[in-house]
């Protein structure tokens, strides 16, 4: 039996019935979309910590959320909570959510302030390299359950699960810069398995700190074009020199189309297909031939049951690193061939920077909004195109154009690749 509720493989069609988003551009889908289509950048000078002696002094941090304590875990949780509240309101759901939670969250470590505090409590060194022995002595004197909780990777999903009444054991995941897309993929799989009618997929990253910034800087991954900050992220241009680290969060309420329609929910779009393929080439670099990225895009199209010609717009990973943009272009060219020139491809990261763990979900929300509004967000800072990358990047200014299906790419360290095909509600 073929009906509107089953896809080409007879699986339940998965609808998006609620969305919420926070980036450096602001809180909420409406504000973000206005800024994004207005070509505004959220990248700014870092004020969270001193940047003296750092080669990168800019970021897309989120500094406007109230926190009980200013640390990565609290910030990541608070953003996830806010975007989830927005998404559930949009979905018209209140009370216990009663479906599984899939959370993409950053791997966190103790804050340096916590180490300094322990060192103060513990007293001076007896010999070089003995700080942890002293920390342990201090902990034996006075245990600190808050320290323990703050370094557990399960602590954010725990709070979200309690707050929103999700069902079962939540999954907290990290597939580096593809995490947000992976969270959505897990939600889609759960609904297709018939395990649940709905899933809460959340991705959050509030982990910008001196150490996280320095770690990426040591790998030469970050832009050092600090002045002016809003011009630093320039995907697909000749002058691109790295990504701009950023924060953000997004929540998508996924629901079987059948259950969404049955309860009279508004359908914002469909997650039509998900693809993934790991890369075995190198820890930080992609296969030079783009093989795994190509396979990922093809897998997403195949899972969606559509051909290359169905894609009307691509929300690129587009980090603005020399290597990613080149590899991504090659992969897209290989899949779409000559037609690629006529497919608009833009990078949200030109404005919001790279929201790392959250990026895949943030950009999925923007992809759906692109379909809903018939407006393509631009790639800003596109002044000096890279001649070896022949793309219609929707340069600098938004464009009115109706699209019915979008490809959204996410690629990350550790050989992580995930792509999503997002589409308009079937009519």
């Amino acid at each position, binding site marked *: 039996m073929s009906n509107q509720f089953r896809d080409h493989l007879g699986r339940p069609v998965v609808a998006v019935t609620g969305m919420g988003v926070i980036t450096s551009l602001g809180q909420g889908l409406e504000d973000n979309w206005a800024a994004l289509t207005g070509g505004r950048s959220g990248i700014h000078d870092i004020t969270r910590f001193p940047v003296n002696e750092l080669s990168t002094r800019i970021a897309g941090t989120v500094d406007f959320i109230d926190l009980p304590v200013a640390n990565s875990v609290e910030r990541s949780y608070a953003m996830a909570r806010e975007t989830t509240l927005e998404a559930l309101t949009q979905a018209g759901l209140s009370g216990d959510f009663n479906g599984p939670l899939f959370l993409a969250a950053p791997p966190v470590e103790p804050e340096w302030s916590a180490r300094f505090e322990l060192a103060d409590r513990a007293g001076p060194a007896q010999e070089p390299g003995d700080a942890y022995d002293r920390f342990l002595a201090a902990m034996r004197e006075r245990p600190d359950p808050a320290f323990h909780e703050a370094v557990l990777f399960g602590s954010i999903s725990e709070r979200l699960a309690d707050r929103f009444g999700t069902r079962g054991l939540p999954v907290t995941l990290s597939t580096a810069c593809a995490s947000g897309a992976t969270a959505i993929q897990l939600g889609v799989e759960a609904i297709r398995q018939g395990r649940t009618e709905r899933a809460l997929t959340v991705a959050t990253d509030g982990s910008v700190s001196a150490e996280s910034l320095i770690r990426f800087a040591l790998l030469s991954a970050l832009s050092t074009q600090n002045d002016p900050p809003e011009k630093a992220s320039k995907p697909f241009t000749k002058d691109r020199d790295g990504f701009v680290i950023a924060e953000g969060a997004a929540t998508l309420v996924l629901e079987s189309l059948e259950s969404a329609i049955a309860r009279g929910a508004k359908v914002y779009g469909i997650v039509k297909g998900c693809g993934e393929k790991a890369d075995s080439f190198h820890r930080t670099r992609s296969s030079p031939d783009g093989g795994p990225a190509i396979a990922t895009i093809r897998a997403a199209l195949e899972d969606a049951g559509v051909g290359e010609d169905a894609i009307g717009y691509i929300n690129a990973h587009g980090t603005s690193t020399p290597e990613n943009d080149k590899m991504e272009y090659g992969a897209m060219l290989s899949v779409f061939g000559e037609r690629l020139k006529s497919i608009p491809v833009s990078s949200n990261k030109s404005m919001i920077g790279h929201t790392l763990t959250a990026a895949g979900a943030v950009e999925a929300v923007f992809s759906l909004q692109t379909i809903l509004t018939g407006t393509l967000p631009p790639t800003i800072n596109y002044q000096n195109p890279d001649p070896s990358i022949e793309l219609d990047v929707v340069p600098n200014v938004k464009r009115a154009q109706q699209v019915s299906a979008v490809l959204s790419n996410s690629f990350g360290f550790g*050989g992580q690749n995930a792509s999503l095909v997002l589409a308009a509600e079937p009519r």
Partner: protein
Amino acid sequence: MAKSENDVVITGIGLVSSLGVGREAHEALILGDSAPAPIVETERFAPYPVHPLPVIDWSQQIPKRGDQRQMENWQRLGVFAAGLALDDAGFKDDAEACASMDMIVAAGGGERDINVDSMIVDEALKRNDREALLNQKLTTELRPTLFLAQLSNLLAGNISIVHKVTGSSRTFMGEEGAGVSAVETAAARIRAGQSTHALVGGAFIAERLDIILMVEAIKGHQTGAWSPIWAREKDHGGGMIMGSVGAFLILESRAHAEARGARIYATIETVEGDRGNRAEGRLEKRLERMVEGAKPELVMSGTTGFHDLAAREKAFFEAKFPEAAIRGFGGLIGHSVEAQFTAGIGLAAMALGAAKPVAPFDKDHEKAMTKPAATALVTTIGHQRGEGIALLAANA
């Protein structure tokens, strides 16, 4: 239970613990008449005992020195154990199978550089511009590659690089629950026909001051000497002794395994995780729901050794399944957080696959088995949160 094509079967076990390297070494030790004495290191991290890594010839599974150098112990142990599981399942040299194999890794974070951290906090004690100091020192002292050796998803990344497992790569986090979700997710995908073969597991290094510190923050460690896991006393700390463990499994659909003539150790009948407040019997209520319908002869318990949790778990299973033999494997190899659940499943699958009784790990608190188990429950009750239970059946 009637067999079906999409049954989830275990066809590979890769286990490294203080007891030794590999499935066969562990089988020889736990399926005999009496279990071996645990191997415990009490000096190096005194007053905290740990079950240390055994001697490992890394090059057996990670042939390139360059690859070994790119990883810290935690990733190296995981990649090594993953290689053992692939070998055990007969997939090691099957490039095609590895290229289409799904992978879910339960990961924590990597080791801190203790010397760099010490240098920074020592210098900071003398200064009042600590943040500026941090920038200076981190910029000059951090090894660029350390970031990757610490990054959670790089255990999976290194498995892709070393073993060429590239069908998919997902990393779950969240302590014990990550291991539970990894198995639960892989099994659900296989059952639904979304996946045919998957590598699932995790690794944990106990011999790390930063990890020891984390648990000391809640006074979780047993201190001083080892004692049997069901009888640890409050005078000697919190009851947990951590152990360095790498534990990976190959899960396959029955159809996929049978088509290639693979050896099937056991079937995963059900696997589920849950969480929530544990007070006032709510933990037991969730366990009750998760074991519904099970009639196990063996309960392979992943108890942490935390006094209250261990006592409650033992009381629950003794009341629920009075005939079943309980084995607290944490007493033998230590608690391994993210790797705990897959380690327990591996041990139970060994017993079911070999059709042999499991020797008591603790003679005073665990009864002998008179015949092999046909079904076994595997439990992991997280040290802070999260619970998981798998029901395994022999492949009769």
